[in-house]
């Protein structure tokens, strides 16, 4: 399997702030990869460097085999970009825009099928200025995929979606994945990352804290399940254990039958993520915010 994105030692500094501080990253072709991290962690800066919008200060970047800083139209015809925000307010219709942008590409998808796939067929002839926020976002996605990209960048694609719109967006991403499209996604919704991503990376203060599948993120300790039950006196008890089955069996003997209020909980991606960010923030606070020695980021592969 070949590599769609390869990043080594990426650094971007704004005045004195290191927005991106030594990131290494590999995304395989056909993979759906999610970048997670708090606001200001450097996600968008990193993605915009990969998209060719921003220049890096140090490091190596290869996207579809080329350096985005010098790549030309052929390269651009093979990537698709859905930016974080746009306030565009044209008097042009959905169909006009999607058909027009399709004309930029050597091998575009069928524009009407793309409009259908983002659920805007009923809004084909509606002007962009009349669309709701969620419809506008779906148009953004349509414009990002109409060129038939090998690699699709999605920067917080579902912000402002209602749950139903988010579900149908997820289905769309699944379709694209099935077509073999590589997808790099940033999101604040951990359930979205959990649902869509083959692997997730957590970024904090310009560094990569971890890269792994959603199920394994944070290592075995972070994934230790909890067994929760009710004692006869009504108090809730909880036990962290790598062997929940044994605990449940033991409790089953003790209660001689049904265990009141039994739950076996695996930490959600959100819990793992939050504890990683909290730990990272704590480490930075203790080591003094200034230039701490450059921690080597292990990219789990």
């Amino acid at each position, binding site marked *: 399997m070949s590599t769609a994105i390869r990043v080594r030692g990426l650094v971007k500094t704004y005045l004195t702030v290191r927005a991106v501080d030594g990131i290494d990253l590999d995304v395989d072709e056909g993979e759906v990869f999610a970048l997670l991290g708090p606001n200001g962690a450097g996600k968008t800066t990193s993605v915009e460097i990969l998209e060719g*919008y*921003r220049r890096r200060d140090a490091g190596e970047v290869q996207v579809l085999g080329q350096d985005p800083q010098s790549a030309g139209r052929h390269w651009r015809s*093979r990537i698709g970009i859905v930016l974080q925000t746009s306030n565009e307010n044209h008097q042009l219709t959905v169909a006009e825009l999607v058909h027009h942008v399709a004309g930029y590409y050597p091998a575009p998808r069928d524009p009407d099928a793309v409009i259908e796939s983002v659920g805007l067929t009923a809004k084909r002839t509606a002007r962009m200025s009349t669309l709701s926020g969620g419809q506008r976002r779906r148009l953004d996605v349509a414009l990002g995929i109409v060129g038939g990209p090998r690699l699709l960048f999605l920067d917080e694609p579902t912000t402002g979606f209602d749950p139903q719109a988010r579900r149908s967006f997820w289905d769309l991403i699944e379709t694209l994945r099935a077509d073999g499209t590589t997808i790099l996604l940033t999101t604040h919704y951990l359930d979205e990352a959990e649902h869509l991503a083959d692997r997730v990376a957590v970024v904090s203060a310009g560094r990569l804290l971890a890269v792994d599948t959603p199920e394994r993120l944070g290592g075995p300790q972070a994934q230790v399940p909890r067994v929760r039950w009710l004692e006869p006196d009504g108090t809730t008890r909880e036990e962290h254990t790598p062997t929940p089955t044994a605990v449940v069996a033991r409790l089953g003997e003790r209660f001689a039958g049904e265990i009141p209020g039994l739950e076996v909980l695996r930490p959600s991606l959100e819990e793992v993520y939050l504890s990683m960010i909290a730990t990272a923030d704590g480490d930075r606070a203790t080591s003094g915010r200034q230039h701490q020695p450059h921690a080597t980021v292990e990219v789990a592969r």
Partner: protein
Amino acid sequence: MITPSASASASGSASTASAADVPAGAAPGALPSTLGLGMSRSMLELRAFFRERDSMVFTFAFPVIMLFIFGSAFGSGEIAPGVTFTQYFAAGMIASGVVLSSFQSLAIGIAIERDDGTLKRLRGTPMPAAAYFLGKIGLVLISSVVQTVILLVVGTALFGLDLPDTVDLWTRFAWIFLLGSTAGTVLGIAYSSVPRSARSAGAVVSPVVIVLQFISGIFFVLDQLPGWMVNLGSVFPLRWLAQGMRSVFLPAEFEQAEVGGSWMLGQTAAVLAGWSVIGLLLCLWTFRWARRGDR
């Protein structure tokens, strides 16, 4: 669900890095031509422009309204034998119309597109920059022609403007119009980088045009202005564009009444061409796809 269209037969080759080396226009899956995309951009720009009703109506109506105000206020007062101020002003308004449709509309329009993310989105596609500018040129050409036709109709019907009756004069009109539009277009694109946001664009751009109209002999006859103001106005294209339009639309005898006693068509050509080159260089040096500080 998302099916590739017929032309997608080439998409297989696009998956390899070597596809980047395929020269444009050679293999299947070649990139669309810049000229074709420029035409497509022009059509899109025009469609958007004519649908933005309020903006379009005001753009076209403004010089006409000015024509009515000045025409009614100064009426048939002659500024030279056989030439009324209204005729003089009408020729100046045609020049102003070119500046409004090129410089002002592009400086404001592109500043807005930069601020609202339109430019950034385009930058992320394989559309070449040249196609974007061709689209703007198409927009300016069509809208300036419409603007000029409206002013000519109103000027001849109501304000005693005479349409030229020789091929020579129409030829002169054509090159002055084209050179003026060109200078206005490139300077408008360059000036679009000055406003810091879409919100400030109107306030940053409009005064430039209004002040130029005052010092370029549009609102006042040029020889009524103090010498230093004429000299200052002569630095900028509008004075020359207006004088060129007078040479087309006013009686030939008015030439003696011009400052310097001549139409000075040579200087007109030189100044307009000079500003076109300066504007083009400014565009190449300063044009940005992203908002200020967004890099």
